[in-house]
């Protein structure tokens, strides 16, 4: 019985999509209700799975169920569900945060003419995301992988009449397609190296060391390409900042908390594949570490509140990827979990602010503490968590990532520098946007309850989820004492390693960064404008995001489009113009010439006929001998 439960978790949101598109498109309130109910139902159904899922992490059997989907010529593809500790955690994150954001959305999207459509898309997203989490094979995860890409495309371009939104949606889809190019090839390689696409069989085979290593290395790197695009790692990160064109709750749910984490989840799910190929794992680690620092530097100079958060998301995803690459799947997943809470909180808080001041520029804000106390307090908690200040969630998970990275000096440096910058830009953001005096005449006021209650719940989560990793029991929920690893790491639970030196350094760095940020922007210890003038080259490079968009723009419009035009020219001028029409012209010309033979004069016709007959006779006579 319990093995069928995950299917219901998966199909409630799909049911919601169908109900909304078929029946309630013209009834916004009903659509929201259906969508929220579906999300809540999925969340509730995850709860009974927690026990069996965690048991699976301690050597028990995972909850699985599979139905045949496609079978042809030796290829067997099924659709299945696989629930172990890793799955359960991801399910909880997705459904709980999803539920809160659904509720928040009813307030944020209130009065939008696409209200019903919005909730249909959100449910479509939930369905696709849960499909990724539950998938038990590569093909299935790819199918849902693409479907979340679709929902992301639809939700970014939700306000499709805005060219920027339409472009951003397209960009997100296409950049992800580039990643999929690698992902599909990776899956093909896995299939040909192992003869199966099922996770369990691939992983068991790997443990037995049955497969040739060369295709596996390539397979691992190619599968990682998919994760690079979805989790917006350098150099395929360019779509994520633009994705902020979508409604803010979408940014919170999809482009911060869950979907972008799918790449990290994929790495965790297929971790044995990477673990078998240490070289591939190193590539993962360095890409992650580089992205973390790279994005953090850009976040420092952004003025759009959502862009700061977007680059911070890139940077934090870099942490997760680096953690996994450094060999600690647990650290990556732990950071994913805490990040989901505090980043969802920050985005929703930003949404609440945008809702109130009608601007996304942090320099239009300021002095919000008194007017929007709940938003401000919760945002503060989220900021502390993101900055990695103890005892908030981000501190613990970041610490685990850094502990894993501490075996690699370069990675550790990248991570620590990022920690400093993170605390700095978070302090800058909070100081400018919330503290000081109001810079705008618009009277900002606190958002309605449907928006603030989710903020408070997320704030609570952002405060406490870190303790999971520290092995501290959370009353009534987990009475665990073995740390986060014991939840997600199938097979070998291990007690958390406490690297006190790493922990102390990271705490000091975070506090220093935050204090520095506050002093500069809150106390005027340093004039940012002067720094800007002094280091204007650096400033321009950062504001222009290292000219990555310009580079890709050139690649697309000059290289790709130029090549396309060349092909089109070849088709039109060479193939059609020269060969095809040339052939036609020759035909016409020869017809024109031979036409002259038909003069209509009897003696000419007789002459030709006679000549022909004579020639034939000659051929026959000669041929006869």
């Amino acid at each position: 019985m319990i093995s069928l439960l995950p299917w219901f978790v998966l199909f409630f949101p799909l049911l919601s999509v169908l109900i909304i598109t078929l029946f309630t498109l013209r009834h916004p309130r009903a659509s929201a209700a259906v969508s929220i109910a579906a999300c809540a139902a999925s969340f509730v159904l995850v709860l009974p799975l927690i026990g069996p899922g965690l048991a699976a992490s301690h050597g028990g059997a995972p909850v699985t169920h599979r139905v045949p989907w496609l079978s042809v010529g030796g290829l067997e593809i099924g659709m299945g569900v696989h629930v172990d500790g890793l799955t359960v955690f991801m399910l909880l994150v997705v459904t709980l945060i999803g539920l809160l954001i659904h509720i928040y959305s009813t307030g944020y999207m209130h009065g939008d003419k696409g209200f019903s459509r919005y909730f249909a898309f959100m449910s479509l997203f939930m369905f696709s995301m849960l499909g990724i989490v539950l998938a038990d094979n590569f093909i299935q995860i790819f199918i849902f992988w693409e479907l979340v890409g679709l929902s992301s495309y639809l939700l970014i371009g939700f306000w499709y009449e805005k060219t920027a939104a339409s472009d951003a949606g397209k960009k997100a889809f296409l950049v992800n397609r580039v990643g999929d190019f690698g992902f599909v090839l990776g899956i093909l390689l896995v299939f040909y190296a192992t003869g199966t696409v099922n996770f369990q069989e691939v992983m068991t085979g790997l443990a037995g060391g049955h497969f040739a290593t060369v295709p596996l290395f390539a397979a691992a790197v190619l599968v990682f390409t998919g994760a690079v695009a979805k989790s917006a790692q350098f150099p395929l990160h360019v779509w994520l900042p633009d994705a902020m064109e979508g409604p803010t709750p979408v940014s919170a749910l999809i482009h911060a908390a869950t979907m972008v984490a799918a790449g990290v989840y994929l790495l965790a799910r297929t971790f044995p594949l990477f673990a078998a190929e240490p070289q591939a794992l190193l590539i993962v680690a360095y890409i992650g570490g580089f992205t973390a620092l790279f994005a953090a530097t850009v976040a420092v100079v952004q003025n759009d509140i959502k862009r700061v958060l977007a680059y911070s998301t890139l940077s934090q995803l870099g942490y997760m990827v680096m953690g996994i690459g450094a060999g600690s799947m647990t650290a990556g997943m732990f950071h994913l979990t805490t990040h989901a809470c505090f980043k969802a909180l920050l985005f929703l808080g930003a949404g609440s602010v945008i809702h109130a001041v009608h601007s996304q520029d942090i320099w239009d804000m300021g002095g919000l503490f008194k007017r929007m106390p709940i938003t401000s307090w919760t945002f503060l908690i989220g900021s502390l968590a993101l900055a990695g200040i103890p005892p908030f969630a981000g501190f613990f998970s970041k610490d685990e990532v850094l502990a894993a990275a501490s075996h690699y000096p370069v990675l550790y440096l990248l991570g620590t520098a990022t920690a400093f910058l993170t605390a700095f830009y978070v302090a800058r953001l909070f100081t400018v946007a919330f503290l000081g005096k109001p810079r705008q005449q618009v009277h900002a006021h606190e958002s309605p309850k449907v928006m603030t209650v989710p903020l408070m719940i997320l704030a609570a989560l952002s405060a406490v989820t870190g303790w999971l990793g520290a092995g501290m029991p959370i009353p009534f929920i987990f009475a665990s004492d073995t740390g986060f690893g014991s939840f997600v790491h199938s097979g070998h639970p291990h007690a958390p390693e406490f690297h006190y030196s790493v922990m102390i350094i990271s705490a000091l760095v975070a506090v220093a960064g935050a204090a520095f940020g506050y002093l500069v922007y809150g106390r005027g210890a340093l004039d940012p404008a002067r720094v800007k003038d002094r280091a204007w080259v650096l400033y321009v490079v950062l504001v222009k995001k290292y000219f990555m968009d310009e580079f890709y723009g050139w690649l697309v419009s000059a290289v790709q489009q130029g090549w396309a035009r060349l092909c089109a020219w070849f088709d039109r001028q060479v193939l059609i113009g020269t060969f095809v029409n040339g052939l036609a012209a020759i035909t016409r010309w020869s017809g024109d010439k031979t036409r002259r033979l038909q003069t209509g004069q009897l003696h000419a016709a007789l002459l030709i006929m006679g000549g022909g007959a004579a020639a034939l006779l000659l051929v026959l006579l000669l041929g006869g001998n």
Partner: protein
Amino acid sequence: MTSLILTAILLAPILGILIILFLPAAAKTAIRLTAAVVTGVGLALTVTACAIYDQTVSGYQFILNVPWVEHLGISFHVGADGISLVMLLLTAAVIFAGVFVSWRIEDRVKEHYILLLALVTGVFGVFMSLDMFFFYLFYELAVAPMYLLIAVWGSTDKEYCAMKLTLYLTLGALIALAGLLILYAAAGEATGEYTFDLLRLRQLAFPEKFQILLFPLIFLGFAVIVPMWPFHTWSPLGHAAAPASVSMLHAGVLMKLGAFAILRFGLDLLPMGAAYWLPWVAYISMFNILYGGYVAMAQKDIKFIIGYSSSSHMGYVLLGIACVDTVGLSGAVFMMFAHGIMTALLFGLVGFFYDQTHTRMVPDLGGLSRQLPFVGVAFTIGALASSGLPGTANFVSELLVFIGAWKNYPLPVIAAVFGIVITAVYMLRAVAGVFFGPMAPKWGALTDAVKFRERLPYVLLIAILVVFGFAPSLLVDLIKTGAAPLAEKVQTAQAALTAWSPF
């Protein structure tokens, strides 16, 4: 009883033609309804045939054999295996949708529907013929109305395009016919019994040299129709000039005749020839996919975009055929089906707004979703299907081709996988260019598809894409009964190849 079902499918449009002949030209609604009913019956019969086909036995079923000209070995001989059934289903669905899309035509309604039904009779005939003579007859029956349909009801340079298309289709078929006649003569000489009967011809094993020399003739003749690069140039032009329903049939169904004939005559009758030459085809398919995709990317006319994308997608079909693997071959046939439905959907929708905007140039359009939300959504679905989005049949077909071809042709597969990136680029650009962004005020008077009969064809085609996308085994189980023996036959031939080469 079941042996008559194919004949009934064939007779349904003929009956329609007869009824319409006796209707007055002014009775437009009656004419349209007649066409809708007979094609609806055809669709129902085809679905029935697919459902009652015995998959445990496989092979050709519903066989009916009526001798016609006995001393030449010609007979009216029809039958269907898994592959032809899927093609019949495709044809029946596209023509049924096409009849509704053509509803808007007010000019010479009677002639239009008669020609449309004649065309589809020919296509049905091709897919069910087990006699080479009738195969060719039906093929010409399908091509001839095409010329008139484009030249009379078409747009932009219609006479030139109609002429070009007809010349190509006829010329290709003629080359193939020469090959088929050589086959007929050789078989007759060897066995002493001259026959056009495919079921008998396919039992014969022709000498290796003969197969290797003859295969290119038959293959190239039909490859023109596929269309294989570099013989594709007739096809986008033809699409552009044709009226909506004709584009639907042309890209949706007619192009599939080429690939179907390659399977029937090339692979089945000349397996050694196929085994010898198909590696070349695998590499040529790369040109179809990449070149077609890039040319599509540079187009501004939306019909040219879809037209070139069709030739790009046919590259996947060629690759699936060339890899000689049950999975890949099933993928190729599935692709023929999925692409046919998807492209019919897109052409039908383009026709819908072109009738109102009178331009198909993407830069002139934009923001149409505001006025045409239904058309916008349907087109987006079609475009996403075209880019192989999971949840649509197109994804499954591409996946099967990739998996099937990877083992022997990794390079073309890499190109093919990259092809889905290219497809997504031009398709999403087209969607964004036509339907998203701000809308020019001049499009404020456009009207959406609101009536049931206006929406029906598009909803039907989308439903087919989605149903087979989520439950592909419904179709793949049928396809593989035909694809598996064929793949095996060519594989066996491959193993038997000696080192002989014409070079």
